[in-house]
């Protein structure tokens, strides 16, 4: 009789086989293969881009899956999987037809049943999808290649929502996976995008491998790439997203030619990388990549009073924050606005209050709000490359103004957990935390979740203002550029008055790459784009 010993559980024999296999069966990369090695800002740990809003999961999703539309660098939607589409005169009915040749990585054709199921799963998790579906009357497959979206009202953001980039992108997965409960992670990754996920070579915390999808049919006409729009052409045989936790090691690996692409080099290392032979730095797009924000808890004193919230504007000198975070003024922008400066809707409505640094005035406003020296609890992250110095600058400014600051030091993971608590600060809650967000979302009132004021349904801090929410909704029904700008200005003015958050500037995160080894990089604000990159 043969077989494994009965006392050894099957999972341990499997684990032993993996450990042993590592010694003998790891496939060597074939010499002739074109391999693109990229170090990202984080490691791919979860495979379901709907299950989490982590940016790295969105990057993984865009590599493996495809989208119906792709937004270009100006945020305008262009068909991607969709071949043609029509919009009815009343702007309530959208008919879409998938283009020819779309196949999943298992060889099965992409059908509209997959599209409908995927969009439903996306909308169950993503606020942009939820908003779109709140205006949707019907989403139905007409046949295998055509489907129809019928709206209750002429919502103007249909195509931009379907082409959304950033996190929780509406990617199309097989119906089989798309029917999984949105709160449960999928286990199979079978997309129809330009690269296939090599699950057997995936080592979470170390390396994620993708292989070229030789069956991928790019959009015809060789459309020039712009952000997620244009023809996607996979040009390397193998894409490896390598996770190097230590920024100094990652920088050295790039200089030494062990990697080709470094998504987020530390700002401190940019002068070294700029001088390194074969290495180039590239700004990621037309606008800065990140903005910083100070979030106040509207549920508890003193920030349940609008005067105390407005007082915080007078304690923020953006230059102080940006110098501490970025240092080099080439990479940052002072921005006294809530809608990202430099974006199509960037404007200065309501910004006067933010421009004056005046601690005395701030203290006066705090007193008018009834503040009598009670401790203000600040969640102070100690391990974040930008949030940590920004919080230190804020705490110092508050103390210098005469406020009683209770800065509670903790790692970022603890801040993420603690900020969800609605209890008063003395019972484990909080008054202030600092965070950052991507400018792609911050450029558009619908995608800009931090500008919302949806009370209990909103983000941590829970600002509550019906007018702000009304204006956000109104943006969805503005059809011309003039109408959109007017709503954006009104929204920003109101949101600044109510202090949904206090901005402390925006900055760009350049990428670094080996210009002597790769070409075809498309500058893109938000997520990096790996198709169209070739190896020399």
């Amino acid at each position, binding site marked *: 009789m043969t077989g494994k010993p009965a006392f050894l559980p099957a999972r341990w024999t499997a684990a032993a086989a993996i450990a042993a296999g590592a010694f003998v069966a790891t496939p060597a990369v074939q010499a002739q293969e074109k391999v693109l090695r990229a170090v990202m800002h984080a490691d791919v740990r979860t495979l379901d881009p709907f299950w989490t809003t982590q940016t790295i999961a969105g990057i993984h999703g865009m590599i493996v899956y495809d989208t119906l539309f792709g937004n270009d660098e100006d945020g305008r939607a262009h068909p991607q999987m969709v071949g043609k589409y029509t919009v009815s005169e009343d702007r309530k009915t959208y008919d879409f037809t998938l283009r020819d040749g779309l196949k999943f990585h298992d060889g099965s054709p992409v059908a509209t049943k997959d599209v409908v199921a995927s969009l439903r799963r996306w909308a169950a998790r993503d606020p942009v999808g939820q908003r779109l579906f709140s205006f949707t009357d019907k989403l139905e497959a007409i046949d295998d290649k055509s489907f129809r979206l019928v709206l209750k009202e002429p919502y103007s953001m249909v195509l931009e929502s379907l082409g959304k980039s950033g996190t929780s992108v509406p990617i199309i997965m097989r119906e089989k996976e798309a029917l999984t*409960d949105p709160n449960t992670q999928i286990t199979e990754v079978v997309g129809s995008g330009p690269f296939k996920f090599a699950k057997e070579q995936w080592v979470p915390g170390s390396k994620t491998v993708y292989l070229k999808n030789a069956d991928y049919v790019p959009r015809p006409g060789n459309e020039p790439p712009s952000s997620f729009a244009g023809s996607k052409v996979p040009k390397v045989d193998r894409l490896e997203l390598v996770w190097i936790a230590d920024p100094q090691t990652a920088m050295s690996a790039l200089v030494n030619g062990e990697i080709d692409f470094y998504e987020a080099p530390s700002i401190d290392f940019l002068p070294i990388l700029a001088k390194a032979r074969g290495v180039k730095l590239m700004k990621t797009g037309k606008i800065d990549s990140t903005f910083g924000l100070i979030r106040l808890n509207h549920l508890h004193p003193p920030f349940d009073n609008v005067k105390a919230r407005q007082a915080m504007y007078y304690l923020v000198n953006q230059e102080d924050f940006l110098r501490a975070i970025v240092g080099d003024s080439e990479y940052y922008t002072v921005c006294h606005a809530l809608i990202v400066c430099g974006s199509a809707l960037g404007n200065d409505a309501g910004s006067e209050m933010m421009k004056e640094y005046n601690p005395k005035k701030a203290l006066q406003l705090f007193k008018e709000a009834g503040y009598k020296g009670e401790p203000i609890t600040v969640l102070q992250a100690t391990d974040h490359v930008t949030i940590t110095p920004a919080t230190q600058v804020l705490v110092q400014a508050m103390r210098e103004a005469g406020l009683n600051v209770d800065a509670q030091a903790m790692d970022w993971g603890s801040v993420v957990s603690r900020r969800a608590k609605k209890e008063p600060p003395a019972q484990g809650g909080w008054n202030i935390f600092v965070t950052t967000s991507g400018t792609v979302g911050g450029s558009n009132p619908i995608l800009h979740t931090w500008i919302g004021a949806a009370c209990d349904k909103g983000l941590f801090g829970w600002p509550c203002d019906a007018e702000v929410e009304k204006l956000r909704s109104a943006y969805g029904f503005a059809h011309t550029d003039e109408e959109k700008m007017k709503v954006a200005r009104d929204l920003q003015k109101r949101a600044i008055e109510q202090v949904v958050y206090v901005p402390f500037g925006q900055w760009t995160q350049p990428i670094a790459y080996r210009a002597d080894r790769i070409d075809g990089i498309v500058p893109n604000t938000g997520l990096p784009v790996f198709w169209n990159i070739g190896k020399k």
Partner: protein
Amino acid sequence: MGAYVLRRLLATIPVMVVVAVFVFFLLRLAPGDPAAIIAGEDATAEAIAAVRAKLGLDRPVIEQFALWLYGLAQGDLGVSIFSNLPVTRLIAQRLEPTLALTLSTLIVAVCLAIPMGVLAAWKARGLADRLVMAFAVMGFAMPTFLVGYGLIFIFSVKLGWLPVQGYRPIAQGFWPFVETLILPSVALGIAYMALIARITRASMLEVLSEDYIRTANSKGLATGRVLMLHALKNASVPIVTVIGIGIALLISGVVITETVFNIPGLGRLTVDAVLKRDYPIVQGLILVFAGAKVAVNLLIDLSYAALDPRIRY
């Protein structure tokens, strides 16, 4: 001897149980919430609560503990909260790099440190002794990451002799395997070498002043024979003890070295899991580390009998 080994093995069971209980509850008491990390930056409190419920993290801690113990009794360490992969598989994936790094460090350190310690004792208060002791003080004082960055800068970035980072399994060839281990082994091994060299010197100095060494010398035995055969063998018990203690130090050193040299081993897995609050991985790893520590201690104890015939169990 057999009864002793059995007794020691049985004694590990309560140790492992205490470790398991301690780790489980300590992790749950620590701040941080994996559901909040999974749900992401823009998630609402409701979305986080939904993820928490789906992961079973909203259940009473005692219930979670009972479920974990039940799995553990069947050899199941659970599934990673983030990657959804079995913890046993994740640990198995990372075992080879850590074993390779630990063994290579051990070989480098022991092979260099013992001769250095013997030399220092033999030439006590001479130049060689002072050089070895200076090295020992510096080696112990310099943080591993600093040594690592220095080695990377010189041997990888400037000279281009060795890779900056990564790990190649031995299946991809012996030289690629070795070249990725040289710098990390040296970086990790320096502090370890310093410790062993100092203990070897101290232990040898004590033995070298014994009457039987004087007798051996007066008989005209060769110096090497006196040092290596008569002195070192009798000085070896404290040296072996410190090597054993050093293996525990190696486990913590591996975490830093694996990060600096980007080696996908158990140390990196531990740090990443702690930062992400991936409870099942942390629990599984600590059990594995505790088991390794118990096993090393047992081996060290058994080696005493082999080195010193007077010691019997």
